[in-house]
Structures are given as structure tokens and as C-alpha cells.
């Protein structure tokens, strides 16, 4: 019992240490995403013709989605850097690998910290979309007869009607399942790729590439039409396979 508690505390400490190095740059990315999107909306609102269109069209044409994609790529880049950081300077990876704990736990700590970071970015982006909608509505209220362009329950309708918003927040069971699997898969693939690279298992990158291809294809094909059972099943299998292989690589001393 006591031993278990000690292990949990160690893990908790490790997780906080691992996550701490992500937090600052992640906060900066989230802030950049939020402020950037609000600025883009404000700038685009000067064009009456676009402002008078529906929110989903306005949002898409303002470039917010591009900014979101760039920031998402920055977050994944942050995960990669966070892993390689252990090899740079203090070379803390060697300390980590010699800790009296299962290597699997070190892997899980890294993965969980990535999940926490990705989720924070995603949820703050949702708040950002909400803020952009409020800004859009207030801009419309400022113009003559602008209120007639405001739909009752407009943000919900935008989420329902727009393919772009359905990517950010799917409203059907299939769509949500796809999103959850994408959430699970992206950090796992990133970690798997860098572990494979460190372990000189370059062939593994094909599996990573395929997983990313499947995810991108799903998003580009509008996830709810794409996310049918075989695709979801394939993604689940890929996730389990990637995590298992990552743990194996971590345990085998095959990373250096």
C-alpha cells in the first residue's frame, strides 16, 4: 500500500516536471492563437460584404482557421522539442532512464503530459471561437441594420452547418469518436516517431506517416462522413500498436 503510494507520488512529481517545461511555450502559443484570431476578426470586420455573411463564412475567410492550424503544428513541434530537450544541455534523458522506475512509466508520463497540453490548446481554442463570435456580433451591432444579420443561436448553427467547425467540435457520436481517437493518436505518433528516430528504427516512421495521413484524410474529407466504423477501428488498432511498439522500444534500451 505504502509502496504504491510512493510510486504514485513519484509519477505525479515526474508528470509535473515533464509538463512544467511544456507549460510556458504552450501558454504562449494559446495566447498567440487567441489574440491572433481576435485581431484577424477585427481586421476582416472592416469589409462589410464579408461581415454581413454568416459567421462560419466570416470565420473561414478571416484566416482564423489557418492560424489555428499553424498553432496546432506549433504545439506538435513543441512536443517534439520537449522530447529532444532531454538530449540537449543537461541530457536529462539519461537521468530519466536510470531512475528506479519502470521505463513504461516514464513513457506514460511523457504521453500524458502531451495529452494534457493538446487538450488545453484545443479547449482554449474553443473559447477563442466563442470570443470571435462575440466580437463578430458586436461588430454587426455597430453597423446600420447590422442586427438583422445576426441569427438566433448563431454559434450553434455555425457549428452544425460548417464543415470547418465540425472539425473543431464534432456534434455527432461518430465525429466525436474520431476526434477522441485523433487526440489519442497524435501525441502517441509524435512520441513513437521520436523514439523510433532515437532508436534508429526509421522504418517505423512509415507507420507514423500512415497514421498522420489517415487523420489528415479524415479531417479533409469532413470527419463525420469519413469516420465510419472501419476507419475508427483502424485508428484504434493503430493507436494500440503504436503505444505497444513505443513501450517495447523504451523498455529495450533501444533508444540512445
Amino acid at each position, binding site marked *: 500500500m505504502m509502496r504504491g503510494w510512493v510510486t504514485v507520488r513519484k509519477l505525479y512529481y515526474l508528470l509535473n516536471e515533464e*509538463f512544467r517545461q511544456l507549460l510556458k511555450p504552450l501558454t504562449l502559443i494559446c495566447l498567440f492563437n487567441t489574440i491572433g484570431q481576435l485581431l484577424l476578426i477585427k481586421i476582416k470586420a472592416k469589409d462589410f460584404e464579408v461581415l454581413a455573411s454568416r459567421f462560419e463564412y466570416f470565420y473561414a475567410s478571416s484566416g482564423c482557421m489557418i492560424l489555428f492550424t499553424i498553432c496546432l503544428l506549433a504545439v506538435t513541434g513543441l512536443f517534439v522539442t520537449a522530447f529532444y530537450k532531454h538530449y540537449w544541455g543537461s541530457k536529462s534523458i539519461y537521468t530519466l532512464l536510470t531512475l528506479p522506475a519502470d521505463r513504461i512509466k516514464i513513457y506514460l508520463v511523457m504521453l500524458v503530459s502531451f495529452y494534457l497540453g493538446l487538450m*488545453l490548446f484545443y479547449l482554449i481554442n474553443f473559447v477563442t471561437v466563442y470570443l470571435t463570435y462575440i466580437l463578430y456580433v458586436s461588430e454587426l451591432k455597430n453597423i446600420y441594420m447590422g442586427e438583422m444579420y445576426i441569427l438566433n*443561436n448563431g454559434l450553434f448553427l455555425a457549428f452544425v452547418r460548417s464543415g470547418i467547425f465540425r472539425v473543431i467540435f464534432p456534434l455527432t457520436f461518430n465525429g466525436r469518436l474520431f476526434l477522441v481517437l485523433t487526440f489519442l493518436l497524435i501525441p502517441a505518433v509524435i512520441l513513437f516517431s521520436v523514439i523510433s528516430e532515437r532508436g534508429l528504427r526509421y522504418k517505423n516512421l512509415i507507420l507514423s506517416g500512415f497514421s498522420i495521413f489517415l487523420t489528415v484524410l479524415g479531417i479533409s474529407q469532413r470527419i463525420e462522413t469519413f469516420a465510419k466504423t472501419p476507419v475508427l477501428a483502424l485508428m484504434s488498432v493503430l493507436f494500440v500498436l503504436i503505444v505497444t511498439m513505443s513501450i517495447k522500444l523504451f523498455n529495450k534500451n533501444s533508444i540512445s
Partner: protein
Amino acid sequence: MAKFMKKHSAAIVLLVNIILLVVLMLWLQNSIKAASFALEDLFGQRDYINGICITGSLHDTGHSLEFSLEDGKISTRTIVYDTYSDYLDQIRYYPYNWSLIDNKNTEVLASITDRISDTAETIVQKQEFNTGEFSEYGEDVILKTTIYADEVDYYCNISLFDDLFKKAIFKTGISRKSDRKEFMFEEERVYIKKENEMIPIYSSQGGASAYNHKIYPKVVKIGEKYYVTITTNEFCIGSGGIYRIDGFEHFNYEKDLVGKVTKIVDVDLKGGKLKVIGLEPVSDKLLLLLIDNNKLVVQLYDTDGNFLDELKPDIPEVRGDGQYGNSYFCFINGKNAHIVINSESKLISDNFSIVSLSVEEKLKLNHTLINFRTKSGRNQEFFAVESVDDKLIIINGVYEIGINADDIYSHAPEIQINIFDKSGELKYQGRLLTDMKDDYEILSVPYHVKHTYTIRHFDIFNIKKSNY
């Protein structure tokens, strides 16, 4: 504080994530409930709606607000679907779904073509053009033959949608005769001109289209058989009626007639005085709709073409021009058929007559409503007509006079529920208050943006007796 944050950063972020997730879910729940859907009484007492259950939906390509109006009380639920086809699959079997569709199935394609009658007088004109295009074999020459005829016969061409070469092509017996040789047929043959001979390359036969003759096929299906009638106009002579498609056949260019078709009902068009305006399947019977001297005649036949009954409702002259074969709408639910007849010859008509029938071995007239108009606007469309006990329920779309012209044909922004008693007196009128109007009020958005907008539409699923 900073030390605490440092020590527990993961836990704090986890907590923030959970809070944001809960907020997101609450927002979603509230948004689903935020859609407006209410019934406003315009005339009469709400009690009159007791005993009736109306179900339907307000939907766009992404979601559907399904409602049930039972004994005057509204309940709603929102469904978000993966694709629009999910919704279309759902409504496929609802009774009123097919009422507004001209040919009441999607399994066949039907069209009318015209050919020169055997008895027609004709003028033939032949012209030869040198194209100026040379190949190694010689110059391409076009030989154009134009035939002007004073009489055409109409043929009906039915193809199976799954296999467009599986066809039934038959002569309808309907023709059109003119004082002048106004029906033009063109044929072009392309040859290679050599010194002593013309080598044919290809030919194209034109003019075999009756698109401007305002004559349309109407196909219905009972059991596994298709039944067809041809809607006619005042210029049509000969005889129309009901045709049964007994078999389709692979298309053969050399054959004039394809497939096996039996004319089960023969209707003499009396030189154009009698017009066929439609055919409707009601349970296992066929309703043939005719206009005889501008008066509606409804005839009932069984599927072998045996005459069972006839009704001549006392409604004003039928004036709708039936430009696309739609001079009426027929709402069918089980053994009930409700025919909405256009009584005005205007482009946007506002005056309708409604005939409500029950079909057994004989026809039973339940309601006749003359001069159905709306008080607060203009009629745009009918969503459903149904009779429950002695009540006639009409659900129609209305637009206000003066609405932007662009929006008139796209949709009626306001939906009314009208209930009449047996004598044709209006007992209740209500208006459904929805957010649908929002979708049509964005007027100054450029058309190229606007036409891509998803807009909400209204569907009635069913109207039936409630358990009241």
C-alpha cells in the same frame, strides 16, 4: 503561489481542462434548447386542435429540430446528423414526402418525345454544306435535312434509373395537329466527299423533343408495377389514359417501340376539351385526375384498369396552367387523398380549392374547400393536408406581401396551421414561430455567397389522431 503552480502544474491544467469541458457541454446543452419553436394562435380556440397529433421537422443539411404538436402542446428534440442523406433516408417513407414530388418514385426517368405522324403533311428541305475541313480521305460535308410537319405523335420514354438502357418506349395515342407546318425536325449527316461517292461518317437526328409542348409523363408505382399517365393540354388530340409497364427491354436503335406496355384505361381527349392532369396511387387503386370543360373530374380505377367510381367536386374552374405538370398537389396518407387545386392562372397563385377524399371500393368525399386563402399574407406552398375525424387540417407556408423577390420562390418563411370543420368553416388558425425566418432575411449578401448558405426547411412527417 509560483512554487505551488510549479509543483502542481499538471494537476492545475487538468482541472482547467475539466472546467472548460464542462462549460463546453453546458453551452452545447443550452444551445440545443435555445432554438425557438412555438405556436401562436391567430384565430379560434387552441382547444380545437385537441385530438390531433402533428409531427415534423425543421431541418437543414446539418441538423433537424423534430417537433410533435399533440393536443396543442409542443415538444421538440434536436438531432445532429453525420450527413444529409441520413435525414433523407429517415423521411423517405413518411406519407407526405412524395406528395410534392411530381413523379412519385426515384426509380425511373420519364420523358415525352414527339415524332412526325403518319398522316402529317410535310415539307422537306435539304441543304449541303462544305465544312472546309479536310482529312486524308477528302472534305467533310454536312447534309442537313429539315422537315416541317403539321402533326406530331407523342411517345413516352421510361428508363430505369439503375440501368438507363433498360427502357419502355411506347406510342401514347396522343397527338397534336396544327394549321401550319410548325413542328420542325432536323437531321444532320456528315459525309466525306470523294470524286464519285459520299462516304457517311455519322448522323444526328434532332427535333425529337416535346419540352415546349407542355405535356409530361407522370409515373406512379403500385406493388411492383409502374403506371403512367400523360398530362395533356388543350392542343392535345387523340386518346390518353393509364398505361401499365409490363416489362422493360434493352434499348435497341432499330426498334421504334421498346418494352411491353399495356394501355389499361383509354380516355378520349375530345379534341382537347378534356385534359388529363394527373395520376395518383392511393392504397392499391389509381386516381385519374381530369379536367372536363374546366371542371375537375376524379376517376377511380383498379390496377387492371376497371372503372370503379367517379367524382365531380363542386369547385370553381381549374385554371392552373400546369406548366411543369403541377396544376395540383395531392397529399396521400393511407386511404386518404387530398387534392389541392390551383384556382388562379397567375404565376404566383393565392386561391386554391381543396378536395379531400377517402378511397375504398368507391370514392367518398370528405371535405370540399373553396377559395382557400390566407388572411395575413400570400400562400407559397403546402406542406400537408389531412383529415382527422371531421377536421380538415392544412399546413401551408405563407410569405408576407412585399418580401424580397429573391426569397419568394425559395421558401415560405412562415408556417400556418389551419383547421376547418366539415362545413368548410375555419375553426382555428395558428402560426408556428421558428427561427427559420433568420435564414431568409439576409438580403444584401452577394448572391454568390448567399446561394451557398444552408437554409432550414420545413417537413411534416405525419398527421394523425392523438390519444386525447
